[in-house]
């Protein structure tokens, strides 16, 4: 944590496969994500996006294939002290028995990286980034709205100053204005410390706005991959439908 200047780390996925009880969820994914890239993953609900992210951070063991983070193989016992990795869970994943402040400061406190006063200062600073004030810091997660919980989860990930950060639908449950700030913060973090970011989102505008590259996942394989411009003109029907989905009464 001493050198907050360090840069992002590259990510390699080779022939990743995973099935649950015989049902294939990921089928031979191959992917290279460059250091410092913002990579957006889109796709229908249930296509395996969350499962893929869980593999990247070592919460799930693949049936076949491998994942290399900064050249090191990701496994259940990946050395998270060597590389700083963070994940924002789809459901937040806050510890319900701790206050917001304790949740956000957990990483620094448990690893004894900073003095207690310093930790409180950092916590308030990160909470301010996601538009939460000191009055929210003393609350418990159960006293917050879904969107506020999501923002606390993002603040908790930012505290790590990660080199690789995975966001699982960071802007679901958030109103458009806060979504904008979150999008801006993803960009900021990326600019400031060059963090490699993998963002799963259903929010097309956000994706187009922040992504260096976008991949479309369908039934466990990548069906389209490219820059936002390339994706916009993609011939794949699913992508076209996704980008042009608009509510019309039948």
């Amino acid at each position, binding site marked *: 944590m001493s050198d907050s200047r360090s840069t992002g780390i590259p990510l390699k996925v080779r022939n990743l496969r995973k099935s649950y009880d015989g049902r294939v969820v990921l089928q031979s994914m191959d992917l290279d994500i460059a250091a410092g890239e913002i990579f957006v993953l889109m796709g229908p609900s249930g296509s395996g996006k969350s499962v893929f992210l869980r593999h990247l951070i070592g919460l799930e063991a693949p049936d076949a294939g491998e994942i290399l983070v900064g050249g090191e193989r990701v496994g259940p016992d990946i050395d998270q002290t060597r590389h700083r990795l963070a994940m924002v869970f789809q459901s937040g994943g*806050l510890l319900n*028995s701790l206050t917001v402040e304790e949740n956000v400061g957990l*990483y620094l406190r*448990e690893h004894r990286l900073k003095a207690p006063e310093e930790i409180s200062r950092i916590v308030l600073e990160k909470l301010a980034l996601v538009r939460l004030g000191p009055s929210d810091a003393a609350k418990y997660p159960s006293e917050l709205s879904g969107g506020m919980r999501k923002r606390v989860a993002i603040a908790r990930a930012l505290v790590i100053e990660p080199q690789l950060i995975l966001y699982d639908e960071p802007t679901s449950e958030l109103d458009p204005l806060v979504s904008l700030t979150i999008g801006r913060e993803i960009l900021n973090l990326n600019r400031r410390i060059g963090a490699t970011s993998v963002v799963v989102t259903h929010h097309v505008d956000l994706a187009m706005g922040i992504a260096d590259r976008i991949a479309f996942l369908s039934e466990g394989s990548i069906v389209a991959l490219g820059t936002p411009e390339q994706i916009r003109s993609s011939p794949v029907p699913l992508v076209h439908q996704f980008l042009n989905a608009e509510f019309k009464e039948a």
Partner: protein
Amino acid sequence: MFRNIGEMVLLFVATVKALPWACRERRKIAEQLFDIGNASLFMACVLSLFIGGVLSLQSGPVLVENGIGSALGNLVAIAMCKELAPVMMSILVAGRVGSAMAAELGSMSVYQEIDALRTLAINPIRFLVLPRVIAISIAVPCLVVFSNLVGWLGGAFVAAHNDRIAVPAETFFTSLREGVDPGDVVNGLIKSFFFALCVGVICCHQGLTTQGGPRGIGRSVTKAVVNSLVLILILDYILTRLLLPFDNGFFA
């Protein structure tokens, strides 16, 4: 079943390996101890009073008819400290505290809190399991000491006030003092320590392996309590057998 046992052994080993962290987790251990005491002290008191009482009530008349009513104190005290207090207190703690542990860790697994800990490079065993297992292993032997005292009082009270027994409290406690070694009490404490360790590991294991939403939490809690009870009783026999050679004065 066998996989479960294997996993529990691994969890136990991992917990032992995390022991050097115990000092850093002392605040959490203290919190757990407070919770355990809060949840079980009153129940332990009521339970022990009645167990002591019923022991007197069942064996008193028989002893008195055979003219050895004066040995009642000895009998009640030994039954209480070597067998009933350790077993009943462990069962009480499994039901009151172990179930809550399984439910709490279970909901943490289901709602991805454990995964979140892992992504923060915090070992869930050190953070969650260690304080709970240590606290429960300290708390149960303490409860047993308390239960012994209350149980003896209950036994003496019934012995003195039941017409068919009518052994005065003085006789009761004289026989108790002469018949009970400190070794008998230690014997019970050793047993209760191992029961508590088992309850802690079983309940934490069930909690951590919970899958499948709120229904899964309910299933985990039931399994944690039932497995704890079964194991307490099996272990009770084994430990009693192992401790048998040390009876009659080894500790005294």
